[in-house]
């Protein structure tokens, strides 16, 4: 599932932007170890995605699209 997460990131980063790519990477990666509940899994993925945008886009100012091309 770790590799599936990275693969999803590589396929989604250009068309889907950081939110979709990081979110799906975290979601797929989270299945590599058991989570106490689905609610906690979703909450963890949401926090990670938000942190990824905050750190990489706002703090480090990386040249990445945050939203999918069809939205922006």
């Amino acid at each position, binding site marked *: 599932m*770790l*590799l599936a*997460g*990275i*693969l999803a*990131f*590589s396929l989604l*980063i*250009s068309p889907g932007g*950081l939110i979709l*790519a*990081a979110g799906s*990477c*975290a*979601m797929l*990666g*989270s299945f*590599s*170890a*058991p*989570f*106490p509940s689905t609610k906690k899994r979703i909450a*963890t*993925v949401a926090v*990670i*995605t938000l*942190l*990824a945008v905050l*750190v*990489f886009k706002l703090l*480090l*100012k*990386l*040249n*990445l699209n945050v939203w999918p091309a069809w939205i922006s």
Partner: protein
Amino acid sequence: MDLLNNLIYGMSIALAFDNLGYCLLGATLGTLIGVLPGIGPLATFAILLPISFYLPTVGAIIMLAGVYYGAQYGGSITSILVNIPGEASTVVTCLDGHKMALQGRAGAALAVAALASLFAGCVVTVVVAVAGPTLVKIALLFGPEEYVALLTLGLVSSVLLSGGSIAKSIAMALIGLLLSLVGMDVNTGTDRFTFGILELSDGLGFTAVSIGLFGIAEIATSIEETGGNGRKIEKLSRLWPTGEDFRRSIAPVLRGTGLGIILGILPGGGGTIAAFGAYSLERKVSRRPRLFGKGAVEGVAGPEAANNAAAQANFIPMLSLGIPPNAIMALMLGAMITHGITPGPQVMTKQPDLFWGLIASMWVGNLILVILNLPLIGVWVSLLRVRYTYLFPGILVLTAIGAFAESNRVFDVYILMAFALLGYGLKKMNFPVAPLLLGLVLGGSFDEQLRRALLLSDGDWMTFIEHPIALGLFILTGFLALLIAMPNIRHARDEALAGED
């Protein structure tokens, strides 16, 4: 006087607000890594590498250095409290540190470990400041022949002093050398081993390779080993050691520091060998050897001083000669190269702010670490209880973005995946990965210097024998290889490096 002026100059850089912040960040991250047994310093270094590219050069190197020696401090916390070493160099601390914790003296063990590391760190900083410029003067006498000999010594040492079978280590170093050849040949402009893939013309992305080999592979094995669960921890009692603990720790700390410095400077040397060496030494010289393994404070003080001293002494060959003595320093070297710095003797003259700022930051960092490790020990203890399940997805996202962000290419993420698979497979088959990384990092300059030496000598290989320094270094390499081939030394090596890789 020059030394003092340089140290004051370095201190002015290290104490600048932003650099102080990077030092604090690095030390905190290092302690965190040391505390969480799932992720070692090598993996974290690899994962943090791409982030460092977006920071100012001096700040980035200060932060990465903080991660490295911070991990030595943090590793001792888990060794003492849960009998699980956060990283290989703190394996020895488990032997007596955890026994002290079981006797209700966890606080004393943690304090001795932190203070021993602080003392060693402060002494080594002075040694780095004195030895660095001296080595730089010697390095300025080096031509391509001497560099080829020195790089050979570095590679052979990394092979001999990495854990596992020597044959496997040699294979790994050779694969690393081969991988370093991928890309365009700078002398002829011809593509080498690119198989027509345009993206490979620039060579394999160092960040993607190191994250794949160390980061992802380590996450995968960590999930298998822990199942994503947290740890149960011994209760913390009185934090301050007794007068008797202090008295018994002084000599081991001094001996450990000395041993750590010597082993840290040597190519291939590192905290693990230094800690094991210090423990054996303390047991031999002690008047109470039977107390070792049962909670002897000397068994914590000596190895802790030694592993921190060695970790910081590793910077001497890296900063002055541009030769990384181990895999973490190889990553540090990679970070410097990516920041446009040519590692080697010219760093001190061309980037004095980096050289002296980094040295002075080690003092500041060690002080920060004692503050982080003693009064805030409760915070680290509570972190030990966090389920790793929550951390892995975040680390995975960090690695994927890190690989992609180096050159904004999806191809680097594919490289990351390929090397993650390779790293995991190698780990499962007990192949040491550190020599591969050293081969990859040193391969470029080895190729360049070897060809330069042969060009200057019209292809005459005798040039390596005609240069006395090069000949001396080759003899030293041969002597080291012979020494390790001796059965009793080989047995001691296998024992000492059981925790590596």
